């Protein structure tokens, strides 16, 4: 049971991070290969504040998200003015720099040994509720002027500008929202595992998240969440297959990207309306049976 619970917590945390990267790499179409660094910032800032300064969990978490936002502003301001492909490089460099910084500042972060002794505060309830709230926030973002402008500039930046869309500003809003959400995922992570080390937050993590959103479909939040759940729990569920599980994971991903390039869900979104219809349909069926 503990094992399943821990999978659920990790999956929820991944889902949060994925909703974050969905905003910037899915909707806005900017590859952020340094996204894991925001998770690292969230995890380390909150962790250090809790361990060295004995701040309570909510305060440490709140400060950590703010620092994540600040870091997002510092990296974002120059980076989003670059051409698309260079944004991937710039964020990649930022991510690796943060990992290196964490490795080097031994006196504060414990360096490669990691930071341990963080109190365990994240439980299954907090993780799942947080994930649901993040999904709600990103859903609202997608169906608003922000979401539409993000998709518009992703599809055609020149046309977006000529419609009066302030491309730099919209990209910045998306970048900051994504940084804050990802930093929050880091906070939950640190307070669940009680131990963090820099190697967890290198670019492979960011790349994994990008794979997840492409797997689910870059236009579909439902897809991103579904893929986040599936691809995080799949390696755990396949644990019996020992080293083959990575191979199976990769094959699944390759098959999807090859045969369904728009992702599993494409443009499809699960909505409350859909549930309502389904519920109505079910009720009617029951009525007939009576």
């Amino acid at each position: 049971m503990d094992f399943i619970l821990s999978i659920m917590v990790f999956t929820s945390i991944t889902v949060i991070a994925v909703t974050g990267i969905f905003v910037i790499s899915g909707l806005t179409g900017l590859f952020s290969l340094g996204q894991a660094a925001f998770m690292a910032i969230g995890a380390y800032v909150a962790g250090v504040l809790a361990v060295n300064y004995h701040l309570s969990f909510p305060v440490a978490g709140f400060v950590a998200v703010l620092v994540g936002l600040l870091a997002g502003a510092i990296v974002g301001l120059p980076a989003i003015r670059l051409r698309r492909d260079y944004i991937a490089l710039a964020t990649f460099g930022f991510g690796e720099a943060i990992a290196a910084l964490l490795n080097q500042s031994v006196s504060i972060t414990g360096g490669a040994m990691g930071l341990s002794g963080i109190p365990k505060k994240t439980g299954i309830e907090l993780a799942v509720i947080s994930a649901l709230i993040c999904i709600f926030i990103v859903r609202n973002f997608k169906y608003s002027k922000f979401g539409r402008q993000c998709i518009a500039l992703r599809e055609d930046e020149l046309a977006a500008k000529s419609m009066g869309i302030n491309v730099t500003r919209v990209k910045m809003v998306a970048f900051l929202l994504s940084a804050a959400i990802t930093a929050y995922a880091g906070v939950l992570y640190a307070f669940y595992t009680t131990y963090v080390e820099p190697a967890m937050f290198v670019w492979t993590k960011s790349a994994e998240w990008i794979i997840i959103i492409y797997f689910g479909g870059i236009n579909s939040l439902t897809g991103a969440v579904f893929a986040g759940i599936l691809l995080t729990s799949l390696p755990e569920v396949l644990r019996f297959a020992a080293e083959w599980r990575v191979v199976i994971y990769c094959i699944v991903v390759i098959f999807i990207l090859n045969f369904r390039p728009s992702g599993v869900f494409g443009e499809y979104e699960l909505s409350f309306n859909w549930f309502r219809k389904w519920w109505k349909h079910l009720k009617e069926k029951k009525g007939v049976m009576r």
Partner: protein
Amino acid sequence: MNVLEVRGISKSFGGVKAVTDFSMTMKENDIIGVIGPNGAGKTTIFNVISGVYKQDSGQIFLGENDITNKEQHERARLGVARTFQNIRLFKGLSLLENVSAALDPTARYNIFHNILLSRKMRMEEKRIKEESERFLELVGLLKYQAEKPENLSYGYQRKLEIARALAIKPKVLLLDEPAAGLNPKEVVDLINLIRKISQDLDLSILIIEHRMEVIMELCRFIYVQNFGKTIAYGTPKEIQENEEVIKAYLGEED
């Protein structure tokens, strides 16, 4: 008062002088045409006016505003709208959302209103939706509002682009070859549509077009470009009889 005034703009790419010393003025409710052979620099004029390229010299005024050094999106907000020669719609968005995206920069709510789904946000979203529907209705595409633009015929895509451009409530609308690729019936439709919007919406229109029936039907005044220079300007009748223009289009007799 001139709605748009262009004073001697020039633009070169490397050694190629795409536009040399182009000037024009537009009055209210004006329809003006720019014609000329391929490569005459017509689209470059549009790109300079709408701010895609920075001009090498010259000035541009929109009403009383000097927009010479304004960014592309600022010019759009001030009232310069355009369509593109090769249609550029937003593929990931529905027809309605394509038009809404042009209205979104005017929506007055911020990210916190958005996250909390506040009343202010819902009111603004409602306004944008209603206005978008009105513009789709205007070009006759309201019944396809939930479709994706790539599923539309070429003629409808052109109309959607015009609806999207109108949504920013422009003072000046730049149409870059709106009739390209349309069949004769669609061309007649388009002429009627352009006439309708110029009358109903109180805006001035600048058209680049190769289909002479469009230009001659609609335009009060025409500028003829060749190799980046204005070789003639005048009313449709004057242009039709102009020797220089005939030479540029048909070549010279030996």
